[in-house]
């Protein structure tokens, strides 16, 4: 085991992965190819992301263009496929552009939290002892808050805004990711091949990179992917409370909040932004579940 790692090319590149692991990822890909449900929801997710990226090209209207005479029109009114909002702006265009902000606010905090929380978890798990106790007890404190409450508390105290919202969400997701990484690292650390690598003089950096990270990356990434859906719902929820994105930026949660006032006039349009959140979060959950079962070696 250690000879393959010692002779491997620069460890910072993907090429360094030993052949046996490529077989594992190959297996995962093979299983995913024969999982129609995951493929279907994965396609939906990809379409949503593409729509957000290419929003300027496909949006039929300017998402900021207001019109006094076109306020709260029903779907289908003069080319407004999903109708118009309380300021006469095209709802479809705003949903397409809103995807950029909502998806960023959902995905970025999970990515940053995976890096920080995962890093702290590996450190705690590999170092053990006092460092472990110190890190994990601090995490326990943040674990003692329900996630919605912690997100609201931090962004509420910091005074709202998209950046503060993302910082709050990052802080919400660091403790659970840290715990998952710590558990996985503690398990791997005590396995024989890690001792063997250390005994044959493999530098700590290599042991961490190949033996520890190579084995815990799967569970940590699966867990992180399951958090993205939670993060999107929470991010939109913050904007819905007036804590996240500020007007006039298009954001699904913020749109939902603004259109809520119009449920007596234009109920169908008021429900639209929520449908976007729902489809995204279902797709994300299904893809995450599919990945989990594809990466589960036991099944």
């Amino acid at each position, binding site marked *: 085991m250690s000879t393959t790692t010692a002779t491997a090319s620069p460890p910072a590149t993907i090429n360094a992965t030993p052949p046996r692991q490529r077989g594992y990822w190959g297996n995962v890909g093979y299983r995913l190819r024969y999982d129609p449900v995951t493929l279907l929801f994965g396609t939906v997710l990809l379409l949503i992301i593409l729509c957000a990226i290419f929003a300027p090209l496909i949006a039929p209207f300017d998402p900021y263009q207001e019109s006094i005479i076109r306020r709260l029109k029903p779907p289908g009114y003069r080319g407004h496929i999903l109708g118009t909002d309380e300021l006469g702006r095209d709802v479809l265009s705003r949903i397409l552009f809103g995807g950029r902000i909502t998806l960023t606010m959902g995905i970025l905090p999970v990515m940053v939290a995976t890096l920080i929380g995962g890093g702290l978890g590996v450190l705690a798990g590999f170092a053990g002892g006092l460092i472990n106790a110190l890190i994990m*007890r*601090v995490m*326990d*404190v*943040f674990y*003692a*808050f*329900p*996630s*919605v*409450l912690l997100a*609201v*508390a*931090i962004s*509420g*105290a*910091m*005074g*709202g805004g998209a950046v503060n919202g993302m910082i709050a969400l990052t802080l919400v997701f660091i403790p659970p990711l840290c715990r998952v990484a710590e558990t996985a690292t503690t398990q791997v650390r005590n396995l024989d091949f890690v001792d063997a690598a250390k005994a044959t003089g493999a530098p700590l950096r290599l042991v961490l990179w190949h033996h520890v990270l190579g084995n815990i990356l799967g569970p940590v990434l699966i867990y992180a992917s399951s958090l993205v*859906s939670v993060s999107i*719902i929470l991010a*939109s*929820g913050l904007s*819905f*409370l*007036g*804590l996240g994105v500020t007007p006039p930026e298009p954001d699904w949660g913020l749109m*939902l909040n603004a259109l*809520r006032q119009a*449920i*007596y006039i234009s*109920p169908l349009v*008021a*429900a639209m*932004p*929520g*449908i976007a*959140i*729902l489809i995204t*979060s*279902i797709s*994300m*959950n*299904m893809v995450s*579940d599919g990945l989990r079962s594809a990466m589960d070696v036991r099944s």
Partner: protein
Amino acid sequence: MFGYVVRRLLSAVPIALGVSMVCFALVYLAPGDPVQTLLPPDADAETVDRLKALYGLDRPLPIQYLDWLWRVAHGDLGRSIATGREVSNEIARSLGNTVLLAALSVLIAFSIAFVMGTIAGRRVGTVVDRLVTGVAVLGVSIPNYWLGIVLVIIFAVELMALPASGMASDHFDPTSWDHLQYLVLPVFTLSMIPVGIIARTTRAAVSEMMNQEFIVTLRANGVPEWRVLRHALKNALPPILAVMGLQFGTLMGGSILVETVFSWPGSGYLLSKAILTRDIPVLQGTILVLALIFVATNLLVDLLQSSLDPRIRRA
């Protein structure tokens, strides 16, 4: 058992202290000086200093924290900036409404999800199982603030069958439909996430239990299927009840969005109003109380579970 209870109770003390530190620190997360929110923007430096001295904000942070903790321990959470009323009174008045909402939601979610999960867990891989799993995924994927709005559109705006928001009066009367009808939509909305989570847990627990050897033995002995199921459920129940308890604590702190949608006069709505008016004392106090309730619920669930399942005590 006694030793375990004492150990578990003691382990909650540092967590509670940590929670209080986070809540204390919230004030310092706010942009600018805490005093600045109380004063007009053109206040001179001398006034700022005087007010700081008045609130004790010129002293070192650890002293300020201990001082704050001492007051909190005596039930003094400060006064609301917006209304001038005592924060502890405001919380006490709204907390009962949130307990009512969260407890009803969890109980209803449990009754639905337990049946769903049991049916799915006995027939893993069948159409019924996929259906239940699908509903469970929907339950955790649906943004409940949106579901609340949709339900208001359907039942309050279009059908005019149920009230859209609020509560009949401050004194809730469980025998009167006039009072109960205000609960229907918020409770249904809030129960969606626990339905998804409890159904998943039940399905996993029951399907695992059905593969156990003692079930095979029971069947081999000719025990009727309904009694086999009773044995399986009895053994599967503790973890499901634990999840249900944890969900209650989560809903207590997580009902803010649903309470805002329905203007339900609970602690979440209080918090949401405090955010809009930047009423930091109310924000801080409410979050502290809700987080401590969450810690207490988790503790209680742990203790109850260990009394149901002696194996946990040894771990």
